[in-house]
């Protein structure tokens, strides 16, 4: 009985320690974001004050005004990013669902080899394909176009992987029942598979959207015309062109570049976790 009480206390201590650890780490990891976000609302002289002003005394949108309506088409960049990321998400969902279903539920010649190839490219450095891909885009005349921003990411290996993992867990009986009812392959796919796979599809869509939005290297190398830049590329170029006298605007730029993703994340949190859960089941 004595040991039991001891153990209870030990467990309590463990929980206390865990809570303390989490709080400390959370504070440390949130602080920089908070500092930047509030910094973007301060006047220049206050943004750089020492010690930092924890609560902006005179919050102002002046920096955002300069950022959004200044010399650079920042709103257009935002729009470019929205178009690119949405198109990548929509097309990646389309291809991933079809391929993932086939890989997960059907047997066809070369299935395991092909799937192995796709898994391999999930871990291969994309940098390798960059130069040839750019040459290809030039030959197609696609430089500085939405097509070139989207096309290389329509086939989304992680999405195929995710849908396949998910489909493998779907009992065959459900599919068999549909085909016994006389539904053809396409009808089964549309009426049974798609509704069943909705959680996986949503996860793929959101992951593809976020990775499309955050894709940097490709956009940086591909884009030349200022009005075709995407938000991350444009903002990073803008910030590196600013002097430290414009720190407030730089912070506003970086904050404006991360806010959309933060909103997407807060809105679709569960799908992120679900996606990782599906993916982690069998690696």
């Amino acid at each position, binding site marked *: 009985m004595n040991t039991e009480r001891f153990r209870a206390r*030990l467990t309590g201590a*463990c*929980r206390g320690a*865990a*809570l303390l*650890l*989490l709080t400390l*780490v959370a504070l440390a990891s949130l602080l*920089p*974001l908070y500092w*930047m976000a509030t910094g973007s609302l301060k006047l220049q002289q206050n943004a*750089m004050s*020492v010690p*930092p002003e924890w609560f902006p005394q005179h919050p102002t949108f002046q920096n955002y005004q300069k950022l959004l309506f200044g010399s650079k088409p920042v709103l257009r960049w935002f729009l470019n990013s929205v178009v690119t990321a949405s198109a990548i998400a929509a097309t990646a969902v389309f*291809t991933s669902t*079809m391929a993932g*279903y*086939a890989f997960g539920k*059907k047997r*066809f010649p070369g299935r395991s080899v*092909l799937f192995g*190839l796709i898994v*391999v490219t999930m*871990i291969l*450095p*994309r*940098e*390798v394909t*960059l*130069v*040839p*891909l750019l040459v290809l885009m030039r030959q197609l005349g696609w430089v500085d176009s939405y097509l070139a921003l989207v096309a290389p990411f*329509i*086939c989304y*290996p992680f999405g195929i992987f995710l849908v396949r993992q998910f489909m493998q867990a779907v009992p*065959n009986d459900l*599919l068999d029942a549909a*085909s016994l009812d006389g539904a053809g*392959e396409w009808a089964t796919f549309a009426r049974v598979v798609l509704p069943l796979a909705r959680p996986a599809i949503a996860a793929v869509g959101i992951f593809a959207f*976020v990775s499309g939005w*955050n894709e940097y*290297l490709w956009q940086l*190398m591909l884009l030349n015309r200022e009005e075709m830049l995407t938000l*991350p*590329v444009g*903002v*990073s170029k803008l910030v590196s062109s600013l002097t*430290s006298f414009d*720190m407030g605007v*730089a912070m506003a*730029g*970086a904050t404006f*570049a*991360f806010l959309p*993703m*933060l909103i997407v*994340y807060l809105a679709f949190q569960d799908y992120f*976790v679900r996606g*990782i859960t599906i993916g982690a089941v069998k*690696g």
Partner: protein
Amino acid sequence: MSGGTTRAPRARRRSLGDRRDAGAPSLSPRERRVLGWLPLPALGLYLLFVVGPILAAGGLSLFDWDGIGPARFVGMDQYARALFRDPIFARSWTNNLIYVAITLVVEVGFGLLFAAALQARLPGAGFWRALFFSPMVLSMVVVGLLWSFVLNPEFGLLNTMLRRVGLGTWAMAWLGDERTALLSIALVSCWRYAGFYMALFAAGLRRVPPEVLEAARLDGASEPKLFTRMTLPLLAPVTAVALLLCVTGGFQAFDLFFVMSDGGPFHSTEVPALWMIKKGFNRQSLGYGAALGVILALVVGGLGAAMRKVKDDR
């Protein structure tokens, strides 16, 4: 141990086996025809935009080419140059190894720690989980910008805070100093990714049957012992995935290095992917850049294959 607890994992295993065996219902010829169509869009694009360029990079690496004029075949010379005559490339691998070692310990370690802490049925577990995962959705560029501000020698948050608490002598140009630049970038990467590994481990932990732990608890195992003896071994498959992702991802690190230091100062944060891009986008060395890319791909692919093999053999 009671019978109930031993039965649970066994039943679980069986259902996994069923799933694998159940592979495919039998097909009619018509169905076979349709099936060929399903993966086609993905595979076609995959060939065009992934496999094609990889092969093209392999071909390009055998030539000396400025992108316009006639290409000169040089065979394996670019590879010889990379392996024996490019000290910066060698340096970049050392840097990358250090970076991967740091991220491996800190990212995966903290990820596991957070996941275990969340497991302790804390109040607001969902809140913590959401919070730690949130840096994952930020683009690397934004993360790089944010931390360049924080690490700025004059007005950066870190130095300001250090001076504030009387450690002013510690304040330094974190990214401008050869001794701290690599470490700083590695820790920024940890800030972004620890939450991802936490989510991965948390997903794994959720699949650890609670009855098993409960039974061990009843048998008198202490919580730390429970963690090392039961939870960790049960987590082994997830850990293997985490290590694989961390190592293969770590050798492709580019964005942070590009935004925060561009390889400097004095190549102390040069990494292979960055060096490869610098070479590959220089008209004088298109072929050389391709060769560096192929080497990088072979190393990462080899590492990935080796780690998968070790995992499967276990």
